[in-house]
């Protein structure tokens, strides 16, 4: 199976704090890879590196063969970003515009001018994600769960090849959290993208994962299918899965 994203020997630091210390990883096309690990381990940093929002000190990030890490100009990065969609942790919706305009934003940003086509696509994706009744609300009028759905609609509207999910159900109750997982599964079947999910919610996130990768101390500690993860005898994996305080994972 071909890899949509290939990460090689990736290093990223902030000042003297090393966040990623030589990560190498392949994310297969058409599958969902979940990156798990304790808070502050650099999961969201990895996502922002893939999206070209941050730049690594060393290493390569090949997205469909093009090296995002080596691109100097925003123009070059933008050509790859147009193939990406991101659901941010807090949805990152634009406060001053309606849900409709938020969802339509990526289309307009890409220069689409045909209002009828924009309308058709927005209503189609809104309908698929049960957002039709909220289209003319402002983001601050909605609950976090609905805002995340709007964020997902915005990430999917341009039918990207890769969708990055940054902690998709952080801050949600279990019922709404399950709904977000159902939406990820539904949209994966409907649009067929390659997914990268950042999460620390185990084992719930396994239901949307084809592969699970665990980060710890800036390195990959374990990887495999959800089943392999469940059977892992690695002390850190077991500690993380069981949510115990004692073990190799130290609270920072």
């Amino acid at each position, binding site marked *: 199976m071909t890899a949509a994203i290939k990460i090689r020997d990736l290093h990223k630091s902030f000042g003297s704090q090393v966040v990623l210390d030589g990560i190498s990883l392949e994310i297969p096309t058409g599958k969902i890879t979940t990156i798990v690990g304790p808070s502050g381990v650099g999961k969201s940093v990895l996502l*922002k590196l893939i*999206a*070209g*929002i941050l730049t690594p000190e060393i290493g390569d990030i090949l997205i469909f063969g093009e090296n995002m890490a080596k691109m100097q100009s*925003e123009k070059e*990065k*933008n050509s790859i*970003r*147009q193939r*990406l969609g*991101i659901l*941010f*942790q*807090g949805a*990152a*919706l*634009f*406060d001053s515009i309606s849900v409709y305009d938020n969802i339509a*934003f*990526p289309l307009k*940003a*890409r220069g689409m001018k045909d209002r009828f086509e924009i309308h058709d696509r927005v209503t189609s994706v809104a309908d698929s994600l049960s957002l039709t009744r909220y289209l003319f609300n402002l983001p601050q009028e909605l609950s976090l769960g609905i805002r995340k759905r709007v964020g997902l609609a915005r990430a999917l509207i341009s039918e990207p090849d890769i969708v990055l999910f940054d902690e998709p159900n952080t801050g949600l109750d279990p019922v709404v959290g399950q709904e977000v997982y159902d939406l990820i599964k539904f949209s994966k079947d409907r649009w067929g993208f390659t997914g990268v999910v950042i999460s620390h919610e185990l084992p719930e996130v396994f239901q949307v994962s084809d592969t699970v990768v665990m980060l710890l101390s800036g390195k990959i500690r374990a990887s495999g299918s959800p089943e392999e993860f469940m059977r892992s005898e690695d002390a850190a994996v077991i500690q993380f899965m069981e949510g115990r305080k004692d073990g190799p994972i130290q609270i920072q």
Partner: protein
Amino acid sequence: MIAVTVRSIERLGYNIIEAIASWGRSWIFLFKTLRAVLSLPISIGLVFRQVLEIGFNSLLVISLIGAFTGAVLAVQGEYTLSKFGADAWTGPMIALSLIRELAPVLTALMVIGRSGSAITAEIGIMKITEQIDALRSMAIDPIKYLMAPRLIAGVICMPLLMAVFTLVGIGGGYFVGTVLLNLNPGAFIQQIRAAVDMVDINSGLIKSTVFGFIFSWVSCYKGYTCGFGAVGVNKATTQSVVIASVSVLVVDYFLTSILTKLFY
């Protein structure tokens, strides 16, 4: 004792280096914003929205401050000038004070307090809630989308607001001077027409344009580089208002000196 002294010197050195670095970053930010302004097209809709926010929505407060500034100038001017039997010059004194100095500076300070803090807070919150990252992830340059329209709007709005301030201020002075202090209405207007030259108006407009530029630059930069969380936004907003206000007053002195040499 030695350790404390060394730490203090280290901290001082760090703060000086950080201040110089921040100064440099603010210039890089300005050049990027100017490049974004010059690399057309700029969305007219985005500029218009900022003109509404910075300009139109400031009209009421600017008019109110202008009217009372003019009124105070009339009372003080009439009191002082009447000591020399020159109270007929109250009108020109009000008009020249407003056009050349008070209107540009007070308008700038009011706009910085009202809109500058709002711009910094808005952009700062967009930064900490990842909205700026979201823009970038959608292949949109946040400097072109967020900063360039605000810079253009600031430069457009400040001279217009200054003109409103001046006109309303003269109106306030006229009302107090003629109705309450019994100055001659015809002489009041006539003396203003005789005393105010086009160079005075140009001088005020040039100052306002420069102040508009400074206000937009500082407000956007501080928002764009704000720290994490509510504390970061709070600090950035305070710094934005203080730096922009002090810069306006310092630049005002130099501009006044230069323009006086050039025009008079």
